[in-house]
């Protein structure tokens, strides 16, 4: 029983070393660690972890296969519900989902489900026979178009392909993966080694991805429906960055986190052999406290900047995953809490030289239950910096909603869809960040899977 008390910890790259490179931070389990950790699972009769997984992976079942040392079988169990296990094992917020509901966590520490998923996926990738051809179901004669090759679109497309649909994904950028390639940095989610490989698995099921097609511009939703597709799934994410609306925000050196991360992740600015320019400055200030803010800060740090995160509430309210905050702190990122920028100041050439900030204190709880930050009068001060990265969240891009009649959106620009993903236009389904606003990879995948089921029912009932 004593074995069950302590959770196996996966090793990380040393903080001092990793702060200077873009290699993956977490090194993952080896076989012994995986076997040990898998043996901790109680194999509950009514597993709460499965219910709290947005794609309902049969967690105790795959972990028991791991414990038996049958990693191929474990991979097969996961594959029934997720086509992107190496990605989810790395970027899911397990602490609030599967691991957060693990019974062991009540008294002790939860099973490291995320690390086990990652281990199984990586092991399977490295060891599965090269000629392991997946069986493709017979095509059922129906075509579905998916907009966006991010996690939601990929999950929807692979489920539909498994059901026999001919699926085409349309991607606006030149590389497939959506936020997995433009947003999440290499040091959390390797692109060539992990993302590209898992997307290749989706392609192997018969899904086609057409890059460089901007739906709403190159083609419209109506064009797709008139052009032979029986249904459309919109998984176009939430790509529109927010700015603060403060003076000086258009100075040279003010970025949206989206731009900063896209230049570095998709366009590989950190590599000398790519032409993409980026300025991380000697000093960088990141405004915001979410996962994207942590990603931007840790990227700026790796590009050589002395980096500070400015957030208007306290450390306790930071919306980012605890693990990301912890990693950022370990790497030497400064945190200026209860601080909010009021103006960006420039030099005579229009380059950023400082941010004027004001101190905040926490007042009464707002609608979300979080205590709202209130400015402390007269507490303004200047923080010297070369670069400011605004990481204040994103909202869905209006390109599709504004070019499609009858597709309702809410006030925040999110597409209106019911729990199955059905929008206000028959035959048009949507899910992921395009519907919810910025959320997580796994919630987007869950929405994609639900919609795949609803699309199947819709087409069959036509």
């Amino acid at each position, binding site marked *: 029983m004593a074995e069950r008390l302590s959770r196996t910890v996966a090793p990380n790259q040393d903080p001092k070393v990793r702060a200077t490179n873009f290699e993956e931070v977490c090194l993952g389990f080896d076989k012994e660690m995986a076997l040990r950790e898998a043996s901790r699972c109680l194999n509950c009769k009514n597993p709460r972890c499965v219910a709290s997984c947005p794609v309902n992976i049969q967690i105790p079942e795959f972990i028991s296969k791991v414990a038996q040392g049958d990693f191929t079988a474990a991979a097969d169990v996961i594959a029934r519900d997720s086509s992107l296990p190496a990605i989810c094992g790395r970027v899911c917020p397990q602490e609030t989902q599967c691991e957060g509901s693990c019974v062991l966590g009540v008294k002790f520490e939860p099973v490291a489900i995320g690390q086990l998923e990652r281990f199984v996926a990586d092991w399977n990738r490295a060891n599965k026979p090269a000629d392991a051809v997946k069986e493709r179901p017979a095509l059922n004669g129906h075509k579905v178009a998916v907009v966006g090759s991010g996690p939601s679109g990929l999950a929807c497309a692979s489920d539909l392909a498994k059901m026999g649909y001919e699926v085409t994904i349309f991607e*606006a*950028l*030149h590389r497939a993966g959506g936020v997995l390639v*433009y947003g999440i940095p290499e040091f959390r989610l390797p692109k060539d080694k992990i993302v590209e490989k898992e997307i290749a698995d989706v392609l192997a099921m018969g899904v086609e991805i057409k*890059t*460089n*097609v*901007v739906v709403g*511009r*190159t*083609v419209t939703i109506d064009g797709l429906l008139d052009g032979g597709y029986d249904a459309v799934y919109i998984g176009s994410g939430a*790509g*529109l*960055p927010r*700015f603060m*609306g403060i003076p000086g*925000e*258009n100075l*040279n*050196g003010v*970025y*949206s986190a*989206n*731009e900063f991360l*896209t*230049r570095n992740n998709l*366009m*590989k600015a950190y590599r000398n*052999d*790519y*032409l*993409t*320019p980026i*300025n991380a400055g000697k000093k960088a200030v990141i405004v915001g406290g979410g996962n994207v803010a942590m990603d931007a800060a840790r990227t700026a740090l790796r590009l050589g900047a002395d980096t500070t995160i400015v957030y208007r509430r306290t450390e306790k309210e930071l919306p980012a995953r605890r693990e990301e905050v912890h990693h950022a702190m370990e790497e030497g990122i400064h945190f200026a809490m209860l601080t909010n920028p009021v103006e960006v100041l420039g030099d005579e*050439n*229009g380059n950023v030289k400082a941010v004027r900030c004001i101190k905040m204190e926490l007042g009464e709880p707002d609608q979300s239950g979080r205590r709202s930050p209130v400015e402390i009068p007269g507490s303004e001060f200047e923080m010297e910096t070369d670069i400011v990265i605004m990481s204040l969240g994103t909202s869905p*891009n*209006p*390109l599709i909603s504004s070019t499609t009649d009858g597709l309702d959106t809410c006030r925040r620009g999110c597409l209106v869809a019911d729990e199955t993903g059905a929008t206000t236009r028959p035959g048009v389904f949507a899910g992921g960040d395009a519907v919810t606003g910025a959320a997580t990879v796994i919630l987007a995948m869950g929405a994609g899977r639900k919609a795949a089921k609803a699309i199947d029912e819709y087409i069959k009932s036509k």
Partner: protein
Amino acid sequence: MYKILKKECLTPTITKMVVEAPMLAAAALPGQFLIVRANEKGERIPLTISDYNAAAGTVTIVTQAVGASTITINSMNEGDAFADVVGPLGNPSEFVKWDEEKIRSSRFVFLAGGVGSAPVYPQAKWLKEHGATVDVILGARTKDLLIYVDDLRSACTNLHIATDDGSFGFKGNIPAMLEHLVVNEGCQFTECVAIGPMIMMKFSVLMAQKLNIPVTVSLNTLMVDGTGMCGACRVTVDGKTRFACVDGPEFDGTNVDFDEAMRRQKQYFEQERQAKAAVEESEADCACKQRGLK
């Protein structure tokens, strides 16, 4: 895909290419732009669409070699293919939504400066085909730098040429020629569209305002994705921040903060200079040079 079917060197630094891109060609309208990435390691370069042919499945781009990525684009030859071409991006010109009556009763004057002369072509052509009277003022520093003369002559009603040094046509810059046409020749323009370098558009707007002609400009800002995702293309119009890629690229020129736009364009000046020097050494075999053009 994205094969270069035809290449023509218009000046030693400006090339015209006809590129295979069927979906894009079928959807393009005047005023829109596209993004080209020459190869895996290149930047995404926004270029205004200079012509499109849905039947042939082609688009025409005109590129001035100013930095590493545009030098690379221009060094590619017929038969080569770009890694990526995406579009059409941005909004079409306002006038494509006008009714016929309004178009027919309009007299447009296009101010075409430098490499901006090329994107004037599809707009002038579209308007003339739809019954508008279209004047084009084509300007350059000197005669040798004039491009698109024949194309524009065929696409518009009246072509006027201005050179700063007087080596061809009117002696003076584009705004001066506009003033001359209105004040001395009595031309009554109802709409003005200026496309060219930021500084030329800035002074064109001032002149159009002085002459009381509504003026539209097409902003060629820095961009990454071109779909509203990054905000690199932020411009201040009428005191508000707008994204040139999705809110533009065309704006009412009157209230554009050109000084800010010019400053933002130079954001990566030092890095671009270094990258350009490196690429100039390695890619010195452009067809223009091979053919002995200076």
